[in-house]
């Protein structure tokens, strides 16, 4: 009654046209996605691809455009330009049933019973009521919520409410799972549990998009990441590539005796001393092995390790550098 199909046809025509360029085996592909709100560009020409069994980290500071990107993938809002393909087809409302979504801000129908809420969201994803209940039982068992299934949501602890919400986002076995801050609000034990579950989804060949501020988690889970700031891509690629690209040339050196003179070495930018260990920041172009050779002749060096930069550090450095440029 209310649908206008005109646009749908347009998108379909375009899709057939674009189909030739599509990379086979890649399941979700976002191409030149842009979203404007009243002349404000919230998402600016983003492109990325996520394939089966991979977790894609969509990272960025608050207000970077992560949620808007997610909403366009979910088909809640329409992009101003650009396309989103799932398995080679433009994403439409037909894909509702194979997408699972855990929004950042949580909440369920407080006055309703746990089992009813889970069932409702499952039937909205086209799961038969009977099957929904048996799946719900399975999941409630898995997450130690079995005893609470007849309780009202408001009677549950916050952590348990989160678990129920997690169940609602995965019960219908979605092929594409979008998780926005999935660990927020969980204690460390439950965080581990959720992490294990997410990793099991990887084995099942799901496509997972993870949006989070917790860089250590992203580092442990994601195979590919994209860092966005103010709607624009700042860096993207596999974790290794990014670390290589943005990692700083820092080494940790164990020594005996006095090495304070190293500070004046032509290749050193900065040095911090911690007792018998020093962290030395080298100039970008300097080879670490060359540097070791040059200092081991003068000083007694016990150990020499490159420091792997954490994603956390890269995140802060890159975003700050971005802000400085502005």
């Amino acid at each position, binding site marked *: *009654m*209310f*649908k*206008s199909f*005109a*646009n749908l046809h347009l998108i379909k025509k375009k899709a057939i046209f674009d189909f030739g360029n599509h990379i086979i085996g890649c399941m979700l592909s976002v191409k030149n996605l842009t979203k404007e709100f009243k002349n404000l560009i919230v998402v600016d020409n983003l492109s990325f691809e996520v394939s089966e069994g991979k977790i894609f980290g969509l990272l960025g500071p608050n207000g970077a455009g992560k949620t808007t990107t997610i*909403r366009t993938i*979910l*088909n*809640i*809002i329409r992009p101003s330009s650009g396309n989103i393909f799932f398995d080679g087809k433009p994403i439409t*409302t037909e894909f*509702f*049933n194979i*997408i699972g*979504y855990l*929004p*950042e*801000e*949580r*909440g*369920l*129908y*407080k*006055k*309703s019973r746990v089992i*009813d809420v889970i069932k*409702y*969201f499952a*039937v*909205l*994803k*086209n799961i038969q009521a009977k099957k929904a209940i048996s799946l719900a039982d399975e999941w409630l068992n898995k997450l130690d919520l079995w005893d609470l299934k007849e309780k009202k949501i408001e009677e549950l602890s916050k952590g348990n409410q989160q678990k129920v919400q997690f169940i*609602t*986002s995965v019960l219908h076995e979605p092929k594409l799972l979008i998780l926005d801050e999935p660990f927020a609000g969980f204690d460390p034990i439950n965080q581990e549990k959720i992490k294990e579950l997410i990793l099991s989804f990887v084995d099942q060949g799901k496509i997972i998009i993870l949006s989070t501020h917790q860089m250590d988690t992203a580092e442990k889970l994601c195979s590919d990441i994209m860092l966005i700031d103010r709607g624009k891509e700042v860096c993207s690629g596999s974790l290794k590539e990014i670390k290589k690209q943005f990692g700083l040339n820092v080494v940790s050196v164990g020594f005996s005796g006095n090495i304070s003179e190293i500070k004046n070495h032509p290749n050193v930018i900065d040095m911090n001393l911690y007792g018998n260990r020093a962290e030395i920041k080298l100039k970008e172009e300097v080879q670490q092995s060359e540097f070791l050779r040059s200092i081991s002749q003068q000083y007694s060096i016990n150990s020499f390790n490159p420091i792997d930069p954490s994603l956390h550090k890269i995140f802060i450095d890159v975003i700050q550098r971005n802000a400085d440029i502005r």
Partner: protein
Amino acid sequence: MRKIFEVAKWEFVEKVKTRAFIISIIITPAIIIGFSMGPTLLSDNESNTTQAIGILDSTGVYFKPLSSELEEYKLDDGQPNYVAVNLYNKHKLFNELKLAGDSLVLTDELEGYLFISEDQHSLKYQFRGRSIGNFKDLKRFERSFNKIRTEIKLSGKGLSSELIKYINDKVELHPIKLEESGKESSANFLVVFFTSFILIMLLMMMILYSGGMLIRSLIEEKSNRLIEILVSSCSSDELLTGKILGLSALGLFQIIIWVVLAIALTGSSLIPADAFKNVAPMLIYFVLGFIFYTSIFVGAGSIASTEQEAQQLTSYISLILLFPIILVFSAVQNSDSFMLQLLSYIPFTTPSIMILRLNLQEVSPQEILITTLILIISIYITITVAAKIFKIGILSYGKRPSVREIFQWLKEK
């Protein structure tokens, strides 16, 4: 289609289970019956006992015939409605008697008294009482007095009592409501007034109650972002249609319970059987009116993001809803007025005004058809507009959008 059904089912089942709904089923009719039946019951009680009415007659001519005339009026149980008490005493001054009469009324020993005095130019006739609002009593006092006065005047001219009786034989006017179907019924002002009043109040309270409920649940879904999960599971149109259907089913369920309740009560004759004459068209207006306003609530509700904003919106809508209730009184007195005809064709007032008119007069089938069509077309338009506002409104949080912004939403595809 299946998702629409699932949304409707959820909205219906989860709301039927709430304590608030169960309470409203009982409370709403109780309030309405209290409001509308209260005055009738009170005035009935009054005339069920014999009243002591004083007569202070300075002329000495009227007391006897007036008291016997008044005692002719009987109560339902055959007891006299009035007992006349003579307040005249030839040993006292007239002004003193008047003061004494007043104090008898003020101490509630008398319901009131009739005061008759005559000077050279005119005859004065007063009813002095604490309550002077009972038109039935006052009309009787006036009629009885004038009858006696005519008799006295005529016999003064030498007419025989037989002739006087012949002249004085007056006929009362009985209003009869005619209907094209050939039926006729005696129109009782109170019955017509209160049935119309009850029906419109019911419609209004139901709309306000479920509209308020709808807005509250929308705000809950918006504030905890449930709405995002919902619209990533089904389209916003499906969600909107499901919500309207679910809520309408809830409203219909409520009516059914009330109708059953009312029929049970009709047995005890508290609700006049007249109320159920035009059930079919009334039900249509009821349901269509309900859907019309519910879709307005959906559109309005999706703009609000706090409880206060919701309350504000609800009060605006209730103003439109309240308007016909104000009209009920004058409509009952003049059911042919142009204003009433006009309002029948304005969708905001169509349901309540048509329910009112169906109750007051015979409405032609053409008029029923046209107004129903207008209502259906209006529902289609409101739902289409509401769907567009809903689609964007449910995803915008924080500041309430301006009218200009909403117009922009309507233009968006």
